[in-house]
């Protein structure tokens, strides 16, 4: 009986950790998936947009904490940081679209992929040149309080990360389903040839999609900074590739799928790392992904596309 309770505690404990880890992947992979829906391209710079957004968030948070820490309530500073970082980061997204992807609208897909990768490298190097190799630490925006409910330990930061990620996805869902802009995006992902003829310009919708994706990445970046405070110019590569894998696993262009697959990858990572030696984490995670894609090549919610794409 006792061992059963221990097992339950163990599972719940890791479930919370996995939810937290998965939240990052889910929110970031939505950015990949949205761009795919509109442009039929993966934005390989998205991981590095996330990285840049985290650095922007770091700058804003440090600034605000230095300016207002005494006389403004903590949650307000947090909110202001999030809003301003989202705003600035979305311009990074727009920049990537206009500079890197717009000139390549009619080029083969692989060329756009290379451009995305190269923009990513430029971002990483740019940050490295600007800030040097020293590791910066993200300031905590709220006091961390630990709770112990029935033997399961968690902090308010963890709960906040999970809740904010879920709220963000809900907000995105509303945006895409209920607003005019969201409708234009959905239309574009349905048929990107006919919709521009109906007066919806792809040169407005595409930057908007990049901006929304980058805004999501900005929130993910701030939350990531709260959970893992050490910043590193290459963090976008590690997180970004896994989120990209999640976007594919969920089915290209499917936001729901991307979110679910993001959580799934979080679960696989956490549970593999607790059960097996942690060096085996990538090996097992990628093997599972390989198996899933071998038997379900379109991912979870992928639509039946023709195999002949614009390559």
């Amino acid at each position, binding site marked *: 009986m006792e061992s059963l309770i221990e097992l339950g505690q163990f599972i719940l404990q890791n479930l919370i950790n996995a939810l937290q880890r998965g939240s990052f992947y889910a929110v970031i992979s939505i950015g990949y998936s949205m761009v*795919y829906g509109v442009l039929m391209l*993966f934005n390989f710079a998205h991981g590095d947009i996330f990285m840049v957004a985290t650095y922007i968030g770091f700058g804003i948070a440090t600034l605000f904490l230095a300016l207002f820490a005494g006389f403004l309530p903590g949650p307000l500073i947090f909110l202001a940081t999030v809003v301003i970082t989202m705003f600035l980061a979305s311009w990074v997204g727009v920049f990537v679209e206009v500079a*890197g992807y717009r*000139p*390549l609208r009619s*080029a*083969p*897909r*692989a*060329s*756009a*992929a*290379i*451009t995305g*990768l*190269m*923009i990513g*490298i*430029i971002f*990483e*190097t*740019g940050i*490295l*040149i600007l800030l040097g190799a020293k590791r910066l630490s993200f300031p905590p925006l709220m006091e961390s309080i630990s709770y112990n409910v029935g033997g399961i330990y968690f902090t308010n930061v963890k709960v906040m990360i999970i809740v904010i990620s879920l709220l963000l996805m809900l907000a995105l869902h509303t945006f895409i389903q209920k607003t005019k802009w969201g409708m234009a995006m959905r239309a574009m992902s349905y048929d990107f040839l006919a919709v521009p003829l109906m007066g919806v310009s792809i040169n407005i919708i595409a930057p908007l999609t990049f901006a929304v994706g980058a805004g999501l990445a900005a929130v993910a970046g701030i939350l990531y900074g709260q959970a893992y405070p050490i910043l590193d110019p290459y963090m976008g*590569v590690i997180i970004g*590739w896994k989120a*990209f*894998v999640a976007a*594919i*696993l969920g089915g*290209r262009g499917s936001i729901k799928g991307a979110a679910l697959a993001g959580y799934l990858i979080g679960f696989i990572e956490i549970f593999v790392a607790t059960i097996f*030696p942690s*060096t*085996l*984490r*990538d*090996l097992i995670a*990628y*093997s599972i*992904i*390989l198996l899933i*894609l*071998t038997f379900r*090549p*379109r*991912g979870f919610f992928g639509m039946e596309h023709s*195999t*002949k*794409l614009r*390559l």
Partner: protein
Amino acid sequence: MEIARKFKNTFSNVPMLGWLLGVLAAVLIEYYWGYDYISYYLGLPKIPVLFGTLIMLKDPMMIPGVIGYDLIVYVIPILLIAKASNFFTNPVAAILEKTPLWLSAIIHLIFFYGVLHLWAGINDYRVLVVKLTMISIILTISINVINGYQGEFSCSHPGFMAIGAYISSIITLYFFVNDKTFGAAVLSPDLGPWLFPFALIAGGIGASLGSLLVAVPSFRTRGDYLAIISLAFMFIIKSAIENLNVIGGARGMGGQPDYAPLPIIFIWTMLCIWVVHNFVTSIMGKALNAVRDDEAASESMTVKTRKTKMTAFMFGAFWAGIAGGLFAHVLAYINPGMFSINRLAEILAMVYFGGLNSIIGSIVGAVSINVLGEALRPLELFKWIIIPLILILVMIFRPYGLISFKEINAKKLLRAKHKREQGA
């Protein structure tokens, strides 16, 4: 434009042999007088290693000296000798033209290798750069088979390379070297260099067997999903090696014997160019293009799409394995971190910079990215802003790469140039 046309007119009757002779003259000048006279009087600290770019970037005051050096040593002798030697290089080229193509090609290659050997021999750094560039050529050509000719977007090349590198290293370390991991040498170390090709080929075969893991899913899917499957493959290989402590795990594996001097790598590179060129111009190679352009149509025209895809992957992976084996024996140390995302970005940059569906494009891509990378080394981090920017510009203005969809015509390249003028 006018100058360029005049230049072209003046040198249109110089055969390949003439250019090689010009380069030979330049290299000899550098070899005998480069250090003692030319760089001394121009105030350069030593012979500029890669045409002086390193010196120029370190110390802008040296720019006039370096330009003078390049002019005196390279540009003027090459142009002069190439033009002046016309009177006998053209008849010689005409005689060679009458011999079988393979003989003429081999004579040219031996000549070319001699020049390269002299040039590289001037310092050790050049040797290393030339070796790594040639390995990159093999790698780029091999990925071009999959990404260019066959039209997949495969990201697994570092994985194939790692398999080849590790298998051949294990074989040479086990059989020919007394080391801690594998104990005493099983065979006499003298046999090593002679049996080294078999170790490389074993590595290549291992890589091509590994490629089946990517090739089989490619029957059902292509494009982005295949990119992920191949990416997953790459990560799996990397972390599998990291977890195999027998072969060093994440610490890596060192002490490979120096079985890969410049001539050996040169022979393998030329072999690779020749074999891949024959492969892609054969019926099998044309099938790759057919599958890339329209899978359903080619299937209905009796192309066996599955067999074709498998061949492309196994063939490309084989050469990547060979390249990996050579790489391991050049550096005498490998670790799994070398075969990861960074290597992938480098390989993709080389193939998409040079040009898809073209062997000459792959050579151009591999050489330019490597030489650019070495030449911009003094810029340190800024190098990683300049190279991506160049690549982005290439992608914007030439989306398929610099020289895409072109093949080498060895006959045309090597023929004597005076006949055409008589005809005109």
